[in-house]
Structure formats: structure tokens, C-alpha cells
């Protein structure tokens, strides 16, 4: 089990000093995924004011760092290709902080790039794995089907109507945030409750707007020691709390379809940071699906199991509400290339720095970014602070 005294001792010893997206995100058919990695990496280093030659730690998921580091012309002394789905890039933050603390590296670069929209080739996968043998033959493939099955169980336990209402609230509030983000896929496309309820089914109980976008996108994060961060271009967003883990890979092995591993990572990250839920100014919670947000809010401890519908009621998470959630427009309405987790961190850092224009929160000193990967399988949570 994590040793809290030791975690608390390294809280705040590393900081995010650069974040960026690729030059273009959304529909980018003329660039491949590694190019999106490289663009985002270059942009994040420019954001930090750090030269590529100073990067000595590289982190990625999907690809191996073999591929990304060579493509960018980086020869790392520390390398981490931990790949546990869309939460990986949030988890890399914890690993970067540990590596910096232990002296393995000083400047860590986490990169992401995927052509989810333009490259529709499906990975063939390992035929020996449980998903290939015991789920795919039944048409249980791809995220919407697995997540919708989990959601149906939640509805059974807590009520179909109130679950549906929560899902609609999340879809609409997230869209309202996207309408304030010029880089969001649905920036120019509002959505009403009627449009939500009238939309077609993808995998019942999921309407189309319950499901994330499929885009092309890249993003990157630069992390260094808190000491060195003081002399970077934009200063430090300190990493106060981190936590990670997973409790299954394929859906039918999930111990409880209505609780994610966030039940551990939320409390751990908050305790390490020395804060509570109510101290947070912003929550960026991976929204692969509306249901992902609902089950994650409960698992992280923002509310009790089954109370998520009350928590998000009356557009409380929309612009102007008292619980700002997914202010970029999220995976549902901003961008989602396949493994979206890194974008929760990019937006949190920008909000903490006061760089988000029309959607900027009045008060933003403490933020949580939370990734989910696989089929509700893995989670990573970070707590970030602007001094």
C-alpha cells in the first residue's frame, strides 16, 4: 500500500512548467500520430522556455518511447512507456515526479498523439488475451458497448430516470463549456436537452451525445523540479498529490460496475496534497462517456454512491454553476482522440495560470485532473496548485 508519510514528503517537489496541444486538433488528416506527438512536445517545451536538448526523461503511452523519442530526436536517460489506456498520461505525472525526486532525470517530457478520426485502422491485439477470447466474439468491442453495459447496471441499482437525467445534465453542461473554447470540436454547436433525448442510440442506454468524440489530437506536458521551475517562462504549477492503479482489464472482470479505482486514487491524491474535495476550484474528470463522469464523481468521493444525479443536477457543473467541471468541453465536446487523459491536465494547468479566455474561472488555485483508462479499468489522479 502507498506510504502516506513518504508521499506527503515529496508533495510539491515537482511542477508542471509547460503544456500544449498540437498545432491543429480535431480533423488533421494530413499529419500522422507521431507528428502530433512531436508538435505537441515542441509546443510544450516552448511554453516552458526549455530547450529540447535539456529533456532527459521521456514518457508516453500507446507507442513506446522508442518511437516517440527517436522521432523527436531525444536520447533519454529515463524512459517510461506505461500504457494503461487513457489514464496513462496522468499516471506519467506521478512517475515523472518520482523520477525527478530520485535523481533519474531533471526535465520530463510526456507526449501524446493519436489520429483517432483519420486513422480508423483497428489494432489487431493479442489473440490470447481475455478480451479477444471472451468478449470480442460476442461483439463486446470498443468502448461504447462496455461502458453502456456498466451504465445499465448502475441504472438498475440507482434508478433509470435519475441516471438518465444526470447523463443529460453532464452532456449539456459539458457542451456549454465547449461553446466557450475556440479549439473545441463543438465550439460552434450548442445542444439542447431535447436534442440530447431525441438523438439516436449508439449502444442503449447510450445516446450519441453520451459518447466522446473521435478526433485527431496531440498534447504534451513538461515537468521539472520545483526548484528549477522557478526560473521557467511561466513558472510552476506544483504537483501536490498523485495516485494511480487499476482493478481489472476486461469489463466482465470488473469487481463492481458502479465503482472505479478512483475510489482509491481520489482519496490518496487529496490526502497527499493535504486538502479536501471542497478546497478544489476545478475538477477535470475524464469524460469518455457521460456515465464515466457520473460513476467517477462518486468513486472519487465527491458524493456518495447513487448520489451523482443530485450532485450534477440543475446544470451545477455548467458555466456559472458552483462546481466547474471539464471547462475545456471535455472528451464529449472538445476533443477525444482515443486516450484523452492528458488533455484534462492541459486544461487544469491553463485554468490555474489564468490563460483560458472566455471560460476562465474567477478563482482557480487548486485543481484535480483525473484520467480513466481501458474499460473503467485504470485511474490516475493528480492535484495541481498555483501559488
Amino acid at each position: 500500500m502507498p506510504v502516506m508519510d513518504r508521499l506527503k514528503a515529496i508533495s510539491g517537489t515537482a511542477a508542471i512548467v509547460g503544456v500544449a496541444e498540437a498545432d491543429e486538433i480535431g480533423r488533421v488528416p494530413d499529419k500522422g500520430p507521431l507528428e502530433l506527438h512531436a508538435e505537441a512536445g515542441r509546443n510544450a517545451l516552448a511554453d516552458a522556455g526549455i530547450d529540447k536538448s535539456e529533456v532527459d526523461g521521456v514518457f508516453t503511452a500507446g507507442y513506446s518511447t522508442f518511437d516517440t523519442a527517436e522521432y523527436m530526436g531525444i536520447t533519454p536517460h529515463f524512459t517510461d512507456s506505461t500504457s494503461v489506456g487513457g489514464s496513462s498520461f496522468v499516471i506519467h505525472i506521478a512517475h515523472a515526479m518520482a523520477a525527478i525526486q530520485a535523481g533519474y532525470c531533471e526535465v520530463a517530457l510526456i507526449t501524446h498523439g493519436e489520429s483517432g478520426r483519420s486513422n480508423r485502422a483497428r489494432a489487431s491485439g493479442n489473440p490470447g488475451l481475455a478480451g479477444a477470447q471472451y468478449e470480442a466474439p460476442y461483439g463486446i468491442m470498443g468502448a461504447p458497448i462496455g461502458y453502456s453495459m456498466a451504465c445499465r447496471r448502475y441504472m438498475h441499482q440507482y434508478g433509470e430516470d435519475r441516471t438518465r437525467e444526470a447523463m443529460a445534465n453532464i452532456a449539456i453542461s459539458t457542451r456549454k463549456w465547449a461553446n466557450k473554447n475556440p479549439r473545441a470540436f463543438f465550439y460552434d454547436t450548442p445542444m439542447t436537452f431535447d436534442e440530447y433525448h431525441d438523438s439516436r442510440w449508439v449502444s442503449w442506454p447510450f445516446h450519441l451525445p453520451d459518447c466522446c468524440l473521435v478526433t485527431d489530437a496531440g498534447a504534451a506536458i513538461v515537468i521539472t523540479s520545483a526548484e528549477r521551475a522557478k526560473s521557467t517562462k511561466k513558472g510552476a504549477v506544483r504537483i501536490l498529490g498523485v495516485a494511480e492503479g487499476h482493478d481489472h482489464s476486461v469489463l466482465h472482470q470488473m469487481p463492481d460496475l458502479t465503482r472505479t479505482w478512483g475510489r482509491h486514487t481520489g482519496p490518496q491524491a487529496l490526502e497527499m496534497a493535504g486538502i479536501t474535495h471542497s478546497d478544489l476550484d476545478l475538477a477535470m474528470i475524464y469524460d469518455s462517456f457521460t456515465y464515466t463522469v457520473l460513476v467517477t464523481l462518486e468513486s472519487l468521493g465527491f458524493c456518495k454512491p447513487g448520489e451523482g444525479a443530485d450532485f450534477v443536477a440543475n446544470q451545477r457543473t455548467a458555466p456559472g454553476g458552483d462546481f466547474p467541471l471539464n471547462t475545456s468541453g471535455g472528451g464529449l465536446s472538445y476533443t477525444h482522440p482515443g486516450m484523452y487523459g492528458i488533455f484534462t491536465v492541459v486544461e487544469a494547468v491553463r485554468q490555474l495560470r489564468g490563460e483560458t479566455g472566455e471560460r476562465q474561472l474567477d478563482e482557480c488555485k487548486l485543481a484535480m485532473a483525473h484520467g480513466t483508462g481501458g474499460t473503467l479499468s485504470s485511474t490516475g489522479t493528480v492535484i495541481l496548485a498555483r501559488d
Partner: protein
Amino acid sequence: MADGYNKPIPIPQPESDHYWEGAKAGELRLRHCDDCNQAFFYPRNICPECGNNNTSWIVASGKAKVHTFAIVHRPPHPGFMDDIPYVPAIVELEEGPKMATQLVNVTPEPEAIQIDMPVKVVFESITDEISLPKFEPA
């Protein structure tokens, strides 16, 4: 093989040969931990609960209840194009473990399927080597 069967086909592995041979023979075979005295799914030689390898095979009753399901309207793979809407499900077997499957001989509508509804196994032959355990209302 049924004509034109173009869905994903399981490739048995050393740890699952006996499971798939059982399905072809019309038996739902489960791994059983003789230390925990508990069946588990999916087949592995070592019990995922206690970590011991004191495991054997049992034949399941084939009785189960629906743990959850969905109704798929957008096929995730070209092979399922003619099947939509279809009903993937997780069922809880009488012996305890949960497994993923598909419900058959049900109306693919939300009102027609209930959580905890009793179901029983049926085997659909898809190749000379492979039959898929599916479940229908008991």
C-alpha cells in the same frame, strides 16, 4: 464454419483449450480452485484469488442470471452489421463467476430484458473447432 462468418473468432490458448473443447461438446467448463472451493472465470491454471495452483475443472450447470446488458445499435465491427440490434451481456453463473456473453432469443428492447432475469446456456457453433456459449431466457 457457417457461411460468411466474419466476426472475431476465439483462438484457444494452452490455458483455455479445455474450455473451448467443452463448449464444442456442449459443456460449459469452469476452472475451480480446490483451496478456495470456488469456481472462477476466465480459465487460468493459478487461482486469481489465493494464488495457488490447486485447481481443477468442473462442468457448470449452465444456469445464470443477467447481471447487465446493452443493446447495440452501431456495430463495432463489420461482422456485426447484420446482427444489430444485438444484446451483449454479463451473466452471473450459478457457480458464482461472471462471464461476458450475448443474450439470444430475446427481443432487443430495454423493456423485454430484466436484470437478474434467469437464463441458461446454449451453444452456437461458429467453426468446426469453436462453439460460443450464449444465453437465452430460462
